[in-house]
């Protein structure tokens, strides 16, 4: 059934349909309406979950880590500084291989304070060992949350479902709510191989030595093996997610582009690339430019970690220029996505020029005309790359 609700409500509804068992959250703009909605679901008994209103984001993730280790499906949500406050815990959750799902309505980071959208929060947490999925509209938010729980427990790696703060979290648009019974068959109950169990005691996350150590079954891995496993399994999660998405599409009729979403890219000479709702806003610009005879398309990167490098290289090899728009950067270097894309393209013998634009930080409005101007410039002189990254919309 279609409803018109906010992006945060879409996320909360996804969590409800996924039957999260333990939820912990601490309020932060623009995440708050999501946690409020979950409170409503729990108090009205629409969702049978333990809901812990913790005293910090660090504790929110602690609750999830412990609850997940104890064998329950755990969820939390945060934004911006809240995400950074739990950064230590993010590494922990990934290293402990816990299938926690977290929603992050993206927001800029202080100082100075901003409550508005950019993506510096999650992009800065790209190296914590979590899977990062970005949704571009409300339908993708609710679907991604459900798929995220399935993916997380399939590969035993936590998943962040990210979506632009305000632009998606607080806007209202129609989306379809999947049937509970269908979700139940798509997402089986979480039954971990090991959990905190008095009948089968074990000590989780104990100190691990630099080297391997003998145990009763042979040899127990050292830290480096455990971490290498995490990395390998993250890489394998790309294919796992494709399979999960296929299954989701079969059941619910939506999906098919889980890693990157391409628009008008097939015959394009130029491809704009970005993460999040901006990739949708760019579609209108692409239409205008196509009307003027420019062969251009746009690619939205939906899974950012693990990085879908093969898909991206396939999509961009042979193009004249890829133009990467970003609402976050690796300070002192360049846009994070830009760096990743260039690195992925290094081995391609048909690699395009790659440009980088930074824009929209702290919620600065992104005007269609600005995107049009930037793309026009890049398409006119794709070989000019010396001055990237370029900033859009700086006024002083």
């Amino acid at each position, binding site marked *: 059934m279609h409803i018109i609700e906010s992006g945060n409500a879409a996320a909360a509804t996804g969590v409800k349909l996924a039957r999260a*068992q*333990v939820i*912990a959250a601490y309020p932060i703009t623009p995440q708050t309406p999501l946690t409020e909605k979950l409170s409503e679901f729990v108090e009205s008994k629409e969702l049978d*979950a*333990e809901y*812990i*209103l*913790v*005293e*910090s984001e*660090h*504790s*929110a*993730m*602690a*609750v*999830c*880590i*412990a*609850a*997940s*280790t*104890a*064998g*329950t499906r*755990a969820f939390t949500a945060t934004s911006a500084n809240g995400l950074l406050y739990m950064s*230590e*815990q993010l590494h*922990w959750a990934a290293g402990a291989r816990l299938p926690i799902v977290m929603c992050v309505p993206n927001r800029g980071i202080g100082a100075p304070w901003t409550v508005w959208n950019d993506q510096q929060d999650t992009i800065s947490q790209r190296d914590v060992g979590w899977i990062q999925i970005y949704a571009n509209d409300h339908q993708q938010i609710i679907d991604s949350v459900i798929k995220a729980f399935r993916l997380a427990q399939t590969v035993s790696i936590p998943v962040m479902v990210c979506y632009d703060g305000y632009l998606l979290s607080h806007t209202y648009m129609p989306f379809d709510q999947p049937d509970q019974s269908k979700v139940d068959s798509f997402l089986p109950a979480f039954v971990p191989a090991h959990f*905190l*169990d*008095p009948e*089968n*005691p*074990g*000590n*989780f*996350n*104990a*100190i*691990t*030595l630099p080297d391997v*150590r003998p*145990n009763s079954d042979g040899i*127990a891995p050292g830290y480096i093996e455990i971490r290498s496993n995490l990395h390998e399994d993250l890489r394998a999660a790309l294919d796992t997610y494709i399979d999960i998405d296929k299954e989701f599409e079969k059941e619910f009729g939506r999906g098919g582009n889980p890693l990157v979403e391409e628009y008008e890219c097939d015959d394009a000479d130029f491809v704009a690339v970005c993460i999040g709702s901006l990739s949708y806003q760019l579609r209108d610009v692409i239409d205008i430019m196509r009307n003027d005879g420019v062969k251009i398309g746009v690619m939205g990167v939906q899974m950012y970690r693990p990085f879908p490098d093969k898909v991206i290289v396939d999509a961009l090899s042979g193009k004249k220029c890829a133009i990467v728009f970003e609402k976050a950067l690796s300070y002192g270097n360049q846009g994070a996505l830009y760096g990743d894309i260039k690195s992925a393209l290094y081995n391609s013998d048909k690699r395009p020029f790659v440009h980088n634009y930074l824009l929209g930080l702290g919620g600065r409005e992104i005007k269609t005309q600005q995107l049009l101007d930037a793309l026009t410039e890049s398409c006119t002189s794709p070989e000019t790359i010396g001055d990237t990254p370029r900033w859009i919309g700086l006024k002083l």
Partner: protein
Amino acid sequence: MENKTTILNLTEDEFVHSGTRACTGCGLSIVYRMGVKALGKDSILVVPPSCLTMLQGIYPVASAKLPSINVTFASTGAAATGVRAAMKALKKDNVNVVAWAGDGGTGDIGIQALSGACERGEDLIYICYDNEAYMNTGVQRSGTTPKGVLTTTTPIVGKLQEKKDIPAIIAAHGIDYVATASAAYPLDLYDKVKKATTLSGTKYIHVHTPCPPGWSFDTRYTIKIGKLAIKTGLFDLYEIENGAFQLTGPSKRLVGKERKPVTDYFNTQGRFKSLDEEMVKTVQDQVDAKWANY
């Protein structure tokens, strides 16, 4: 306390294997051994970084026969909350959820998460073993290091500030059970932990825990020195049940009697050697004033 446990009827069941990495003469080892005896099999431990992390063993060997989760330093109270939430969600009502942290993990970096858990009234037992400094990292001062104590970060004149009164801070949350105990009185500790397993809500037990290397004394004196802390009236054993304070056991028996001078305690440990007469007198006066109110 009713039905006090004695050495003779104390269970022989051990939940800790021999051969741990704990230091020779470790006070925590005694506290841990007694605590888990009292908790019994159906318990889940939540442990932040501390000497206990080492004591519980390096992967893949666990020294205790209880399920345990190691968590980040600041998150103990919240992680225990998460275990309890999971137990509720899974309808496993008979499990003791037990957070077990050092004094720094409790009163310094961990106080926010612990305070949150107390305020929410989470059904868990929180045991703080107080060895009065960061011992696992090599004896740095903590909030609970007493005034005047030499540590590696207060190496010459000693700590300038008073010991933070963690049990009082926790009691101020209005939780139903706060108790202090000592490694030197394992049966008293056992009974308090046992009692905590029978109560609902948040239970907090603060255990004074001598540390031979950190306090600079010979390993054989762990119990002696622990007892001296009580007998001098420096560290008091008490319970606060539903807001009602009462001294217990050895501390209760001290009321109205002459206590040993604090110097008897100070003289046993290298960590007090920078104390001058004036400081000792100040401490003695503080202890006397405190006891005048008991």
